[in-house]
């Protein structure tokens, strides 16, 4: 059941298409769907079905071939600076963590803030709060290379939460985790969604997602199917 059905939409797409000329394939075919504020949507589908493409288009990292996208009911093309849009609104979590192995947990969290030149005490405190929230505070000075896969993924989630985004886009976040860590990670997303009201779009192959997401959409050969 969609608990957030009547709430304001965060994302809305209308007849969204993505065509890759190099491979002459459609990754998305007329995808129309809506994600409400506070929603937790699981996107499932076989490999190469177009689910990650949808995520990257919503993040503004890929241009659709045609169709419309709205972010908070604003046409996507009116957002001129997609980098700032991502920084302010989107948190990203990936399958392959992409952490600096020799940096500490805290440094890895703060590295993306390096564009500020001086990282304020307030930002460091905020990062520590997120680590506390994810039960990682005692590991803040540990090098990432000594952490388990599950802990590394939690660092990635903490990094995504640093700017307190409205929406988290997670691309196969449980792909490199065993079932126990996968379950813990999914339950963490659920916790974030419930406590922070953060909208979550989570792409996965994992069937466990149905236990955590408000709803599941499937993408098969670029076509979106509800439920």
């Amino acid at each position, binding site marked *: 059941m969609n608990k957030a059905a009547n709430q304001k939409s965060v994302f809305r797409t209308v007849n969204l298409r993505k065509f890759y000329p190099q491979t002459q394939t459609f990754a998305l075919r007329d995808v129309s769907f809506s994600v409400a504020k506070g929603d937790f949507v699981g996107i499932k589908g076989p490999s190469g079905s177009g689910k*990650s493409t949808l995520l*990257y288009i919503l*993040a503004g*990292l*890929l241009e659709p071939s045609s169709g419309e996208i709205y972010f908070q009911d604003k046409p996507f093309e009116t957002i001129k*600076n997609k*980098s*700032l*849009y*991502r*920084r*302010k609104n*989107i948190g*990203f979590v*990936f399958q*392959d963590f*992409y952490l*600096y192995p*020799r*940096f500490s947990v805290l*440094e890895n969290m*703060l*590295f*993306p803030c*390096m*564009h500020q*030149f*001086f*990282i304020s005490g307030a930002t*460091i405190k905020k990062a520590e709060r997120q680590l506390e929230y994810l039960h990682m505070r005692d590991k803040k000075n540990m090098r990432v290379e000594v952490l388990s896969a599950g802990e590394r993924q939690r660092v990635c989630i903490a*990094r*995504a939460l640093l*700017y307190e985004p409205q929406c988290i886009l997670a691309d196969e976040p449980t792909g490199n985790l065993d079932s126990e860590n996968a379950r813990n990670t999914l339950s963490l997303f659920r916790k974030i969604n419930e406590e922070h009201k953060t909208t979550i779009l989570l792409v996965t192959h994992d069937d466990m997602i149905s236990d955590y997401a408000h709803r599941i959409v499937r993408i098969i050969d670029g076509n979106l199917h509800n439920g």
Partner: protein
Amino acid sequence: MNVLHFLIKDIFQKKMRMLLTICGISIGVCVCIVMLGIGESIKASFKDAYGKRQIEIIIEQKDQLSILLSRLDSSLAQEVRKIPAIEDASATLLYLHKLKGSAVPVFGWEPDSFLFDVIELTQGRRPVLGKREVIVGEAFMRSLAEEQEKQIKIKEVLFNVVGVFKSSSPFEQFAVVMPLADLQSTIGEAGRASFINVRLRPAYRSEAMIAKTIRELEGSFPSVTSMRADAFISEKTKFIVMGEQFSFLVSLITIIAVALGLANTMVTSSFEKRKFLAILLALGWQKVEIALLFLGESLVVALIGGGIGIILGFKGTAYIFSMTNINAFVPTLSIIFILKIVGLILGSAIFAAIVPTWITLNSNPVEVIRGE
């Protein structure tokens, strides 16, 4: 916590590569400084010798190629002083004395010469005429101290060192100074001088007045040449300018090699972390911030290497001067010269940052993240 913390930690993730890159930059900068610094130091020595004493005009023998060969009547200084525009004139005899395989400049100055005003006696007193006494520059004194010598033999005549002076001119730091008449008699050139230093009255120090005074001097003393001190320096350092052109070319090639080496390291580094850079873009970094990240990394490496290179270059210049038999010059690297070198280092760093920035920003972050 600041950006430098991350940059340095990131740079030294690959310690060996970075150390080798820094070594390459250091050697390159060192070569540039040595190549360009030698000419720079010699010119600075000449300029200091004249500028600090407010010497505007030099009078020397007509059509003589080297100041060492120039000879004129030392009493000419007295005649020159009679010209109203001239505040003072001082005859100087210059002789190169071979000491322990090196050529040491020996100056003969008139006992009351204004040339003494700028040097500062740090030990002892001025030499007295006829007593076979000399004063020596501090650098020269250090070389004497090693041998516990307080006497210098010039043309088989022993001179006592009665004072040590500090000169603002590095040219004089290695020099020996004695009364003019003593040097004249020692080297058998009684009544002769190499050149006459002329200082004008303050009201006559404008460009137009200097030119007018030179015309007046040439009219009154047709057997000698009068020239502006700066033109004299340029003339006497012509060989340096020619050498400098060659040095500049070699330095330019070296700096290009340094920039390419640094760019190679930066490109390798950017390839290694291309996924991480793609993630930064996905997390909301702007293109300009990625460019600044590369620039920062490149600058840190270039400045560390460049800093070491500047120190090595200064030491290298000093070493080369110590190897030559002209002990008159000591390395003087001016702020402007150092700034030029720093400019070249910064230019190399910017060039080295442009290449990986261009590669990163022209790659599709999604393709990089997906590993395509």
